[in-house]
């Protein structure tokens, strides 16, 4: 017995299933943040974009009766609010940290605004789990890996696609160039503004989809403060993942486990230690960042060099 949880076979499988579920949530958001940062734009508005996506995802989902349209609606809403950050930070060259935090405020407020009438809504538009035929019968592995919502499989596909676009296409090369040295990329004929806008909007869409995943699957309903700081964990995940698609996925599962642990404990109705388990993902984030920085002391940082730096052509 650890932390009051008895480790039965069903318990462990349940925990691992929840790990993949929370991992999906974090992965979508972190992948979006990574794309934005690859282009040199830090977006600290993740929490706000996720909340907006969550609210819009629920509204579109229950009004149309389709979780797929809900997911899409959340992604579109996330992309639209992210453009405010793009306009301020990329278009006008405002400080990315300040603008991103303002987006957090705005997004959380906007989510509550549109979600106001849906707080106690009993309706549901929830994804059903999809079992991958042939693989879902494998003992243990089948249950943990191959019986999930379509969003989990979609996240894996998006992850692979992101890797491909970033590393194997001209657009990806341009995007990474813009995030390393914008002036050189500009001289090489890449449109800095256009690529950065596109990267921020893509990041916003993924964050919005991540939020919508909360309301169309993981939680299933809308309420205030639904994102509960998980957007911030996704920001840290990008650093943990060293801006690489695969490592971000590993990080998402690791942090997903800590979030899942909490949800399992609630089932066991443990009050006091519950608060400490709740702190776990946040403390783990700090510990992980410290270890990473400690190991990387004498090596060049994997971060895109132009993160946080506004680009104005006439001032290069």
């Amino acid at each position, binding site marked *: 017995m650890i932390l009051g949880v008895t480790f039965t076979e069903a318990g462990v499988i349940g925990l691992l299933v929840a790990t993949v579920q929370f991992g999906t949530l974090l992965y979508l958001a972190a992948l979006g943040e990574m794309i934005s940062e690859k282009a040199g734009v830090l977006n*600290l508005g993740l929490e706000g974009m996720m909340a907006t996506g969550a609210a819009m995802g629920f509204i579109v989902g229950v009004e149309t009766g389709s979780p797929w349209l809900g997911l899409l609606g959340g992604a579109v809403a996330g992309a639209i609010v992210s453009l*405010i950050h793009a306009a*301020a930070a990329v278009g*006008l*060259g*405002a*400080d990315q*940290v*300040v*603008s991103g*935090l*303002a*987006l*957090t*405020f*705005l*997004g*959380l*407020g*906007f*989510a*509550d*605004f549109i979600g*106001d009438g849906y707080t106690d809504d009993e309706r549901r538009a929830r994804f059903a789990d999809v079992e991958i035929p042939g693989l879902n019968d494998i003992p243990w592995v089948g249950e943990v890996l191959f019986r999930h919502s379509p969003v989990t499989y979609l996240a894996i596909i998006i992850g692979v696609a992101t890797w491909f676009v970033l590393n194997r296409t001209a657009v990806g090369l341009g995007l990474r160039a813009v995030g390393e040295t914008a002036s050189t990329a500009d001289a090489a004929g890449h449109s800095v503004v256009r690529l950065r806008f596109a990267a921020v909007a893509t990041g916003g869409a993924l964050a919005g989809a991540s939020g919508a995943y909360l309301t169309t699957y993981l939680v299933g309903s809308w309420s205030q403060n639904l994102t509960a*700081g998980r957007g*911030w964990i996704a*920001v*840290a995940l990008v*650093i943990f993942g060293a801006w690489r698609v695969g490592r971000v996925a590993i990080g998402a599962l690791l942090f997903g486990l800590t979030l899942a642990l909490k949800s399992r404990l609630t089932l066991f109705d443990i*009050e*006091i230690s519950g*608060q*400490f388990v*709740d*702190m776990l993902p*946040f*403390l783990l*984030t*700090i510990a992980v*960042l*410290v270890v990473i*920085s*400690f190991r990387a*002391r004498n090596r060049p940082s994997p971060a895109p060099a132009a993160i946080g730096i506004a680009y*104005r052509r*006439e*001032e290069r």
Partner: protein
Amino acid sequence: MKRLVLARRETPTRGGQPLAFLVGLVFALIVGAILLWITGDPVLDVYERMWDRSLGSQNTWSDTFNRAVPLALAGLAVSIAATMGLWNIGAEGQIMFGAIAATFVGRLLPDAPGLVLIVAMLLAAAFGGAIWSFGPAIARSEIGVSEIITTLMLTEVASRLIVYLEQGPWKDPNGFGFPGVTPRPDRAELGTLWERTHIGVLIALAVIIGFAWYLRRSVWGYELRIAGSSEKAAAYAGISVRRKVLGVLLVSGAVAGFAGGIELLTTTSGKLTVQISNGYGFAGIIVAALALMRPSSVAAVALAFGALQVGGQAIQTNPGVSPAVATILQGLVLFGAIGAAVFSTYRLRLVDRQVAES
């Protein structure tokens, strides 16, 4: 073919920032009016109520002043870190831990006279804030861990710590079994100046003036600014950047924690709750940004922002109006001001596409 570009003004417009703030405010109110109109609420009634509740009478001025105190101190905390280019995003958590530390000392000294208790609790709050920023500070100064993420993560930790204290060790024995920390003694309450305006307003003002003056005039402040603008120059001048990073984040945390102490000593319930920080730490970042990270401008911005928040609460009590409009307004002010501020250093010019492309 013509196209619009941003061109740098030869000299930045004078008075650009106050103007930008004003533009931001107007922008926010316009967008807010549109949102209210969409939901079918009486726009003018709501705004009139906002005005009445925040600046309409002496009585409500008190609320605005009181509200400005934590905003100004949090804004000061953020701007102190910013003199070195550091981001203390976790003022929210430092406010909470400051309040925790003050409550702790209050529990240690059950028999101390009021004034001693107040001083001890406020000092404990500042110390607590510094403790809460110590981890991020040392991680940043020694191995370069981004203080943005670590300070923020500790905010989440602090809020859970308070819930733990409410349910467990500090649970009020007279709380009828409900979770909640035992209130501080009544004599540990800051008095009022006039109406409901409490003495914390004067204390905060003194702290802000003190820091603004010290940062500008002292060797420490001077070295901070050098280290903030160029690490190489600082190293050349024999300034230890590491120690400056550590010091400035600790001081920043202390100021935020102090705000938590003032809040604890002025809340009517006298209780430590998760709501003690009430988003002041985050709003303080907006305040600091609007004040262009200048400690001397923080108080004025905090006052205006306090009015906006207190007025925003009036919206929330308006039946049928979504309370979220108040949150949206705060974000919009900043975006409006960001947009407007750019035009104090830049102007739009129409140029030939060929020129723009070359």
